[in-house]
């Protein structure tokens, strides 16, 4: 009797192990195939892309028809970098542009630094409350720069601050920018192009975000591009290159772009009426940018309104990447939480033909990459050695599959580097290229696994319904090389 029970348990374990390993393999192979398809599509798309015009030509071509844009930058405890990034925004080359910094109840001296450096005076600027947000304490206007508006409001989170900005801005387009980011001088002229070509249908545009650590910064501008010296930001540079030049470009080309900027909201231009039509940013998620884009997709598909959400490959925005494991882990957990919140909020779109390509391609992609990807990969890491030791797994297959996964990751990253070199040419020197290649190899040993563990923790936080953002420690761009 006991012997039979033991045999049954062993058989059950054996079958379960086969299934789990099968699942790990299927998800892994599908993810790799998706990456390969994305690489091919992105290569095709970037071949068709316009050569980057020089600054003067770009201005001559686009400035006459460029619509006004309001740049909205929420700031919470950004004292270290707020002056530099505000200067960066003010020095943007764009014909009609106002800058709105929303001080979201900072506890440090963010507001005072703005008042002192930009000669702010209280302003009674009137606005209509269309998207809800926490009360505004005071609106300021700069005496030095009439197009600089600072909104001081009670703390309500990034989405809440962006909603306040949407209400107060008066342009048909608004651009959400992280206050810790720096924009390229021609960022808006590059990113506005889809709105010029198809003003009736384009409702949101994202741009490529790059890691600023290691760059030389002066007056809020990146004056010389460099690679980060520290390992963590360097590995993130590899990640950003892969994400923006392959994933975003390919998804945009296929018409299934669900996330238009970097992580969340580092840079994106939206049609103000389109954002208002869906009720602005959702304040109950940490992935407000991703959620807004999904809601725009959903609304336009449900209402049968023609629309396009696209990305441009040109580097438009520089951001400071975390350089400690503690800060990076918090960021990655938050991203994972935001992805899951958005995915499950719009679950009904998954595989639903009513939502077109987004339902049939975009959402299944999110399911594989954001929802199933991390737990399945971590399950693989845990189960493979256990099953190997217990003799339930063929070691030859395990090793071969592990090697394939590793080599595939390297291949995709090498492809993204090649795309970067051929189409954008922004890596400064051959020496930097070699360092990035080194990064491509080593990211598979430890960094990738760590990322997945953080993402699992993000899953756990999502299940516990954690809502906070966590502190994001910034050193400020002044300290960049």
């Amino acid at each position, binding site marked *: 009797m006991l012997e039979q029970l033991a045999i049954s348990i062993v058989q059950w374990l054996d079958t379960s192990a086969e299934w789990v390993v099968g699942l790990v393999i299927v998800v892994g192979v599908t993810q790799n195939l998706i990456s390969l398809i994305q690489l091919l599509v992105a290569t095709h798309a970037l071949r068709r892309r316009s050569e980057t015009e020089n600054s003067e*030509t770009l201005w001559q071509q686009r400035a006459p028809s460029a619509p006004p844009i309001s740049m909205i930058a929420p700031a919470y405890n950004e004292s270290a970098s707020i002056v530099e990034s505000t200067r960066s925004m003010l020095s943007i080359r764009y014909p009609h542009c106002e800058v709105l910094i929303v001080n979201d109840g900072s506890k440090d001296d963010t507001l005072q630094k703005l008042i002192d450096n930009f000669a702010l005076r209280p302003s009674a600027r009137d606005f209509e409350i269309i998207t809800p947000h926490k009360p505004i304490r005071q609106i300021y206007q700069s005496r030095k720069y009439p197009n600089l508006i600072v909104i001081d409001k009670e703390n309500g989170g990034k989405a809440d601050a962006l909603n306040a900005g949407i209400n107060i801005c008066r342009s048909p387009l608004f651009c959400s920018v992280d206050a810790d980011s720096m924009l390229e001088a021609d960022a808006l002229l590059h990113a506005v192009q889809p709105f010029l070509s198809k003003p009736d249908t384009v409702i949101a545009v994202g741009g490529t975000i790059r890691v600023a650590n290691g760059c030389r910064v002066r007056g809020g501008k990146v004056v010389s591009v460099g690679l980060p010296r520290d390992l963590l930001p360097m590995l993130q540079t590899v990640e950003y290159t892969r994400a923006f030049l392959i994933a975003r470009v390919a998804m945009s080309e296929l018409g299934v772009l669900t996330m238009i900027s970097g992580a969340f909201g580092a840079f994106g231009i939206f049609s103000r009426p389109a954002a208002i039509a869906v009720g602005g940013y959702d304040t109950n998620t940490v992935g407000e940018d991703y959620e807004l884009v999904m809601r725009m997709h959903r609304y336009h598909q449900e209402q049968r309104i023609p629309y396009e959400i696209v990305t441009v490959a040109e580097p438009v925005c520089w951001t400071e990447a975390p350089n400690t494991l503690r800060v990076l882990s918090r960021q990655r957990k938050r991203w994972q939480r935001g992805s899951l919140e958005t995915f499950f909020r719009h679950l009904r779109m998954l595989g639903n033909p009513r939502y077109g390509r987004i339902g049939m391609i975009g959402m299944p992609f999110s399911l594989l990459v954001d929802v199933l990807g991390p737990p399945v990969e971590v399950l693989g890491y845990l189960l493979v050695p256990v099953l190997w030791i217990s003799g339930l797994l063929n070691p030859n297959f395990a090793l071969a599959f592990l090697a394939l996964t590793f080599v595939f990751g390297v291949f995709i990253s090498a492809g993204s580097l090649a795309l970067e070199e051929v189409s954008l040419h922004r890596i400064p020197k051959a020496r930097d290229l070699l360092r990035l*290649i080194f990064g491509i190899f080593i990211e598979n040993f430890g960094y990738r696994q760590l990322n997945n563990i953080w993402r699992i923790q993000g899953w756990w936080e999502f299940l516990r319904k954690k809502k906070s953002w966590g502190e994001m420690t910034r050193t400020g761009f002044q300290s960049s090389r």
Partner: protein
Amino acid sequence: MNLLQFIWSTSLVLALSSLMVMVVLVLRRMRDERRARQEQHVRGIIQKILFNYMDSDWMSGQKDLNNLMNMNRAAQHVLRTLTIDLCHLIQGQERQQLTSLLTRSGFRDECVLDLRSKIVEDRRSAASALQLFSDSTTEQALLAALDDEDGRVRLAAAGSLKMINALPDLRVLVQKLEEKDVLASRDVRTLFRDLARRTPLSLRQLAADADGDTQLKIVLADAMSEASDFRLLEDLYRFANDDDLDVRTTALRSLGTLQHPDASAVVEHSLSDAHWQVRAVAAGAAGQIGLEHLVPQLSTLLDDDSWWVRFRSAEALSDLGATGRQALRERAAIVRSVNDNAGGRMAALLLDEHGLHELVPFADAEQAETAGQVPSHA
């Protein structure tokens, strides 16, 4: 080959491909760095010869030209880039000299050839670059490019044809742009605005034929804002009464830009349009034109349901000199609380925003009132 062998073989192929890609990238980059250093040196020399050539008489210019023409391939590339950049910055005789240099270096012929490329972007950039040349070969090539299968190429060709004053009949042009659905593009608006500046009357004929074509009417109404010929006002008046909302708002915006007082009746009529978008633009136009007699209507619109109409009306009143500002001050004076009287609040806030009137915070005003003092609004 069994599954295991297949997995290992695939891994090996991918690893070798990755390695090859990386080696090629590094070697390519090292070559580029060396080339960039050489280019930097050559650029200085070419720049000097080029400026001499632009600045010299025929004989010495020929010598400089020969020097430029005899350069190697890499230097020719630098020369071409420099010349194109300069062409965008200068006009007249010097520009002509530069374009003849580009023609002699074979750049024009390459662009004409590129118009037949399979890659859309090559065709588009070639069509755009040909605006530097105004000979008949270029003209014929660009006219043929108006039949390109891609709308962006057609648009670029139209832009270049406009620059060399060789556009075909505008009806033909519109038809070619409409075929590829690019009439809504902002670049088309820029093209037509330029046409309105150069040949305003050419737009009138198009406007007469544009009856059923809403998109064309929007393009024309927008372009007419740049026209210096006031005969076009008749067309704008017609568009301002069009059935389509976008045509009406575009026409009113142009009327505001043109600032012709004859538009008064049309603007006044539009202030009571059923759509808030039209009322808002009409209010803005009234301010831009300086229609002081519309101050009472604009004051009424300060109480409109739409925030934009209230805002544009307040802005218009502040633009209308002493009478308008007085109307704003009168409305602002009766503001009692934050939730009271949207029109008065808008008037008060706008006065403050434009630096015409210091606004006392509502809380202070209430305190002052409680203490028996008169609030500064009043």
